[in-house]
């Protein structure tokens, strides 16, 4: 038995961990799962209990390779990485077929020199392709490009009966699997379209806003001009400055945007974490004072940097926290919770109330992020909806947290919003069924693919998904 947690390091549970190398090994392991069932796990970046299965089997899919499976029609001369470990192939049109265990980090590292970029990246590169599909992840381009599932052309799914299904967006099981949190089967492989890029740099506009209203207004008016946009909110600023933000908006840079010295190696990409969090950190390290200082510095830092057409690398633009390996340990042994909700356009008042509540409660949060969502995918349990999403980290030890978040849940539900399953570690089953209107439809499709309930996770039990 191995004790597993999500990225938030809360509520650990023991499971038998197995590491299949092939689809055949994964299928064989399914037959050995006991009464407590099985769930696939990638790099463990879901914050809560999505990739945990107390007392059951968890398949670590980071070594799962789908070579040997049929990849007809792909021209592997464009580049591939096979032999040992998960592999991927790229065709000349930018269509990538990747084993589920491939990380977006590896994919980016290999694709960038060839002039391709993943269609969607969340705030960390250290997620697997399987995880990106299962959580239907989104990024700073959601308002333009929707979520990861919108770019997937086909999936290979190992279902409970041990058979492999080739799914396309025409199949209902495809849309139950996208965003399905691994509960329809083991995702073995995904084929998705990448985007062509001319350089590995971003051209970025940074702007500060004085309060929440100005933040919302500016985003609504200017988002469409950029492929990637996000606002970082200083939650510790109160009063008239409540909701003051730093807006970061950007696009992939063209060679002409780069200074001459960068043009020589315009597709260079080799980020590595520069710092590592200590393996043990005192619980009180991130307290009101240190986070306030950090937030003030971050907001202040944008002042000289505020400006137009700044050149930034992929890593600092998309994945600032990946610069510190294991940053989740900084919250100490009790871990932290990430609260991310979405509310539809028109529910700006709810957004204001939530920000005011969090701000007034003096919630100690790093990097509270606000983003405007575009259209969603047809995936039944996908999180994004046209509207606004706010995401923040809160130390689990913060007193009164459970009650406050339950109160916020009620506001979010009343506004027609919902909570992101990949982040959640504490909402109630009632909140889940009240806010995901297509849950029953998903359950029905899932039941047909897995009538005996083989695939299950702590998240599925907690939210009574099955």
């Amino acid at each position, binding site marked *: 038995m191995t004790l597993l947690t999500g990225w938030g390091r*809360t509520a650990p549970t023991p499971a038998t961990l197995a590491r299949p190398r092939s689809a055949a090994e994964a299928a064989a392991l399914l037959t050995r799962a006991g009464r407590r069932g099985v769930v696939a796990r990638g790099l463990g970046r879901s914050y809560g*209990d999505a990739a945990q299965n107390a*007392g059951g089997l968890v398949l670590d899919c980071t070594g799962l390779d789908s070579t040997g499976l049929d990849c007809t029609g792909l021209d592997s001369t464009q580049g591939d990485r096979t032999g040992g470990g998960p592999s991927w192939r790229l065709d000349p049109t930018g269509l990538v077929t990747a084993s589920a265990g491939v990380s977006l980090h590896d994919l980016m590292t290999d694709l960038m020199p060839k002039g391709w970029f993943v269609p969607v990246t969340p705030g960390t590169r250290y997620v697997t392709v399987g995880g990106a599909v299962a959580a239907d992840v989104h990024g700073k381009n959601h308002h333009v490009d929707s979520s990861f599932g919108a770019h997937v052309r086909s999936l290979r799914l190992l279902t409970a009966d041990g058979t492999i299904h080739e799914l396309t967006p025409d199949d209902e099981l495809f849309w139950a699997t996208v965003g399905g949190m691994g509960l329809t089967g083991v995702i073995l492989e995904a084929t998705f379209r990448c985007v062509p890029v001319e350089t590995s740099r971003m051209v970025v506009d940074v702007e500060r806003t004085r309060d929440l209203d100005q933040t919302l207004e500016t985003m609504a008016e200017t988002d469409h001009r950029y492929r990637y946009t996000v606002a970082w909110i200083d939650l510790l600023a109160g009063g008239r400055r409540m909701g003051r933000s730093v807006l970061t908006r950007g696009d992939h840079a063209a060679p002409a945007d780069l200074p001459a010295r960068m043009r020589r190696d315009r597709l260079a990409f080799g980020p590595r974490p520069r710092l590592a969090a200590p393996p043990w950190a005192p619980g009180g390290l991130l307290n009101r004072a240190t986070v306030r200082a950090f937030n003030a510095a971050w907001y202040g830092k944008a002042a000289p940097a505020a400006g137009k057409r700044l050149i930034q690398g992929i890593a600092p633009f998309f994945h600032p926290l990946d610069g510190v390996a294991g940053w989740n340990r900084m919250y100490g042994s009790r871990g932290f919770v990430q609260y991310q909700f979405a509310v539809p356009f028109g529910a700006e008042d709810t957004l204001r109330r939530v920000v005011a509540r969090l701000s007034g409660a003096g919630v100690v949060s790093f990097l509270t992020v606000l983003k405007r969502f575009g259209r969603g995918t047809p995936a039944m349990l996908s999180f994004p909806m046209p509207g606004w999403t706010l995401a923040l980290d809160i130390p689990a030890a913060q007193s009164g947290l459970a009650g406050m978040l339950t109160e916020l849940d009620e506001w979010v539900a009343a506004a027609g919003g919902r909570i992101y399953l990949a982040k959640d570690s504490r909402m109630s089953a009632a909140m889940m069924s009240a806010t995901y209107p297509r849950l029953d439809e998903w359950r029905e499709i899932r039941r047909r693919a897995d009538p005996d309930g083989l695939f299950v996770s702590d998240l599925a039990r907690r939210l009574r998904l099955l």
Partner: protein
Amino acid sequence: MRNVRNALGGIDTVLLLGGRSEIGLAIVERLVRDGARRVMLAARGGTAPAEDIERLERLGAEVHLADFDAARPETHVTLIEEAAAKLGDLDVVIPAFGVLGSQAVYDEDPVVAARDVAVNFGGHVSAGLAAARSLREQGHGTLIVLSSVAGVRVRRANFVYGSAKAGLDGFAQGLADSLHGSGARVVVVRPGFVIGRMTRGMTPAPMSVTVDAVADAVIDALRSRRRTVWVPARLGPVFALMRILPRAIWRRLPR
């Protein structure tokens, strides 16, 4: 490790064995106030007082009833399985049944004494082992064992009751160790004299506590990593001394 269903200590399901127990119901009520949504009250005859059921339902819980007889150990495994089928994974199991007879009656009628010990100790052994099997399999969950200071050092004034509690306390510690690493845990609660229905008519001992105080202490323990809870807390150091008090003095203590 916190053996809870959500990141913030939230508990969803509760099984109370001895569904009419005052302390048990006080604990359940607190858990429901904190968000527990599925409760099973298991008691003889499969009934519980209507006002208790209504109160829990008003607080938002779905209340299930089941027939449970502490004196029939052969039914305990089935009951735990029935609870898991109805509630889902068991987050908290509270065997709260027990009888407190008078030592004078036990002295007169050894059969009554043996029967009460079978409930106060034997019943907890079979119910505890049955619950532990489920908790171990599901990889999480907490068994609350209501021990007593009466079992920490057995007194002549109630040595039948006290010896059953002593057995229970030892059983609970051993069970806790056997569950170590499984994800499940045992919390041993050692209250002093509890003023409540069970002790009505008796004169409270020094450092006696209320039912509510015991329930509050159990809730605190569930949120922490503590394995042993004394109620009130100062009974811990007091009994560290009591345990080494010379026998001749211990024997002469008034109660």
